[in-house]
């Protein structure tokens, strides 16, 4: 395996000798840590866009779940990378992810309880109509 991997690392670092098209092809064939991080960043941005643009408060909660999930993906990707560098604390990323999932579950339970209470009192789930605290 290592005899296969070492030339790949060498190729990925020799940017000048390869055209940009070849480099992209190599990146597509051998996705590495940076690809996982990019996917996590894009999922995060999709979640932020959902929070900022949607009016339905339940969909806003779902977007928050997307954001938390993007953070989880980054944690796991770095955990794997540290495992490959032989770091003894590589598994810490996975342990942290378990806690993020716990916090996400608690947040969803409380948030949906608030949505139900709000719907009973105000008869609306549109975030822009819930303005009791507005001056």
């Amino acid at each position: 395996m290592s005899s296969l991997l070492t030339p790949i690392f060498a190729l990925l670092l020799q940017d000048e000798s390869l055209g940009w098209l070849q480099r992209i092809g190599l990146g597509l064939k051998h996705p590495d840590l940076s690809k996982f991080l990019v996917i996590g960043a894009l999922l995060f941005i999709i979640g932020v866009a959902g929070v900022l643009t949607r009016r339905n408060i339940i969909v806003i909660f779902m977007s928050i779940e997307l954001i938390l999930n993007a953070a989880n993906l980054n944690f796991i990707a770095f955990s794997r990378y540290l495992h490959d560098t032989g770091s003894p604390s590589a598994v810490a990323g996975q342990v942290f992810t378990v806690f993020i999932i716990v916090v996400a579950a608690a947040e969803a339970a409380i948030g949906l309880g608030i949505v139900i209470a709000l719907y009973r009192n105000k008869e609306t789930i549109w975030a822009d109509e819930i303005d009791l605290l507005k001056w």
Partner: protein
Amino acid sequence: MVLNGWEAVFFWVFSVAALVAGLLTIMARNAVHSALFLISSLVSVAALFILLGAEFIAGVQILVYVGGVMVLFLFVIMLVNVGAEERGREPIFNHTAQVTAAVIFGLLLAGGLVYALNQGYKGMQASDRDKIAAITDRREAEQQNMPSAATGTFRITKDTERVGGSLYRYASLPFEIASVLLLVAIIGSVMLARTVKQEASADDVDPEVLKEAIAAEPELAKLESANE
């Protein structure tokens, strides 16, 4: 960490599925469709976790998110009325200016992040290359003596054992705090979602509020007198 062969193919399939399902989550008109697209996105990310060798987290993701949280979401969507949204009478997005600003800044953030991640990763790769090569060689040598079912891409990892071990060895206090947090969340959501009727039958409601509620619904007076 470089994926090869079929791992790379599955990486692209599942990451594109996660991104497309995420986009559809925030663009679907019907909230139930949003929830179903979010479930597909979460399952795709769980598949990426398996590619990264975190089988335990992938299982937890599917059990807790898809089996627990999303079912809760679907129940709440059924409890509140979304009929107007489905029939297209209500706009699903905020004001156009707000949406435009959010999309422009989101694209700027995406471009900046992708550029910064690639630049930073190049430096990391250069500094860690020798370490990774040494570790890969050592693991390769260890796998020489193993049966073929325990090697290569198809190996059965000890991921769950490692996560469980360090969860109890190094993170036992946060673990207990997490259980208290879940207890608080359970009690809080039960308290938040009670109706006036349920509060009156538990004799746990402000007298002023109860007077107003009785004016609207005379049935409540019986519950109050039963308590006394």
